[in-house]
């Protein structure tokens, strides 16, 4: 349990607070729904970023990670941030933390059939999750993100699979995941922030709650387009700050609902939906090419384009 070491003292500390005694030291209550796992790795604190050129690169990497639309505009084609899914700016265990990703590369990926460097893996994020353009290897954006991830991974052995890597595995649901049940879960637990239409919400010109589908969300090639990935992420981390409160069944159902919506085209689209499904989506976790509400998901007639970086931003990198 993440906060087991302090949970036992929580009641005592609360009692002190009620008694009017100052409890000035931070105490760490039990995380709602936290499960019994080995203590995850703790990345270095933010104030441990060193001075100098390398530290500058790390800081830039974190800025890109938090606000890619501002600091990597030439490559971002939607309204998402890296930190929307990699929570706590890539630090949080169970939310695909960057420290665990960094030490996992180079690695073979079935997605493209060869050994990928870490930078090539980052390219995939821009191509799919950010529905943008791929920064060339060695591009300052990739160097900064690599530096930030390297910094976060300080002290982790390479090639291991540390606790907290990726998303926590979720048991298969008792009932087959269901779109209609998912719509109900969405309305009750997600729509207040992400909108009933899934398009997110903005304030003061900035996206606060990211769009989950539609033209400004991730495209059909993104990892979050996999119902399994989305269910695992949702169960561990959503609603934000209340991870673990949805049941596994609810998580599978709502992931199915979200991943059955219209979103930008897969950049690998061959020109034919059925063929694209056969080549890239031939598994039960993808709804691409399936018919939902009378429309075929991925049909170019109803599907926003892939790679929508405004020309003005692409020129001024």
């Amino acid at each position: 349990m993440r906060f087991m070491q302090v949970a036992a003292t929580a009641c005592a500390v609360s009692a002190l607070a009620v008694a009017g005694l100052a409890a000035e030291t931070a105490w760490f209550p039990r995380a709602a729904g936290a499960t019994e796992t080995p203590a995850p790795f703790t990345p270095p604190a933010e104030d441990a970023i060193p001075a100098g050129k390398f530290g500058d690169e790390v800081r830039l990497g974190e800025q890109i990670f938090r606000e890619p639309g501002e600091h990597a505009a030439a490559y971002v084609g939607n309204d998402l941030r890296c930190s929307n899914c990699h929570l706590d700016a890539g630090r949080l265990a169970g939310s695909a933390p960057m420290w665990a990703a960094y030490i996992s590369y180079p690695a073979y990926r079935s997605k493209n059939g060869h050994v990928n460097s870490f930078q090539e893996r980052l390219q995939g994020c821009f191509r799919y999750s950010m529905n943008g353009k791929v920064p060339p290897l060695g591009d300052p954006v990739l160097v900064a993100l690599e530096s930030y991830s390297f910094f976060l991974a300080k002290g982790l052995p390479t090639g291991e699979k540390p606790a907290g890597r990726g998303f926590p595995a979720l048991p298969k649901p008792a009932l087959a995941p269901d779109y209609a049940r998912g719509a109900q879960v969405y309305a009750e637990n997600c729509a207040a922030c992400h909108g009933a239409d899934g398009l997110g919400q903005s304030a003061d010109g900035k996206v606060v709650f990211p769009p989950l589908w539609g033209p400004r969300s991730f495209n059909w090639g993104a990892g979050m387009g996999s119902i399994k990935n989305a269910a695992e992420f949702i169960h561990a981390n959503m609603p934000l700050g209340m991870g673990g409160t949805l049941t596994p069944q609810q998580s599978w159902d709502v992931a199915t609902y979200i991943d059955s919506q219209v979103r930008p085209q897969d950049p690998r689209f061959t020109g034919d939906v059925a063929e694209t499904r056969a080549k890239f989506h031939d598994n039960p976790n993808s709804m691409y090419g399936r018919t939902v509400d009378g429309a075929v998901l991925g049909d170019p007639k109803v599907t926003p384009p892939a790679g929508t970086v405004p020309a003005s931003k692409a020129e001024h990198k």
Partner: protein
Amino acid sequence: MDRNTAKAHIHVMTGCSNTSAWWGFVGMGGWMSRAGLALTLALLAPAPVFAGDDPATGATVAMQPGSSGRPACAACHSADGAGQADVGIPRLAGLHASYIADQLGHFATGVRANAIMAPYAASLSADERRAVAEYFAALPIPAPVDPIPEPVAKLDRGMALFQRGDARTGLIACTQCHGPNGVGVGSFTPRLAGQSGPYIAEQLHRWRAGDIRDPRGAYMRAIAARLSPADIEAVAAYAAGLKTGETIENTAGGKP
């Protein structure tokens, strides 16, 4: 105002049930003297004449006492909706109309337990609550008053929590739901920037103690559980000092 006195004021304002009688007495004196003065002024003022339909209804509720003995909202929340930040009376001007109306409804039904607000809210019809909510929502956000001076270290801690959260405890940043600099997002999250610090702190203390307060209070209860009492005071002080400036339009991409 020292911390204990401030706390006493707030406990009175929110009707917190576990407050000692002594605190309640001290707080009541301080609060009633101010509110009483404002109320007297409101009663002495000539009854304003309003033209129009819904705005007049809202303005009437806001500015004139009700036949049930309810004081004008403005008696405590001020005619410009600024509230009284130092004693924890929240600013209403510029909050989302749906948010204000929802809270009035929760006061009226007791979902949000508050001894002061409950009878006032219950004396209003749903239409009146909606109208007065729209009235205050439409008021320009008043220029911020000088915040209560606070130690730099406390404000720095508050800023860190507000803007970044705390990865060690799984605490998300306030801005992740309340928007950049806490401007609020549609009807879902209220504006925090420039809100009364004692008011924010009291709400957080109540959530931390397990209060749900409203149907969406489960979110805030989970968050407040990750804050120490000192962190609550720090983050509230920081939010209170955020400059609000002119009204910033919120855009909701999602339909309600």
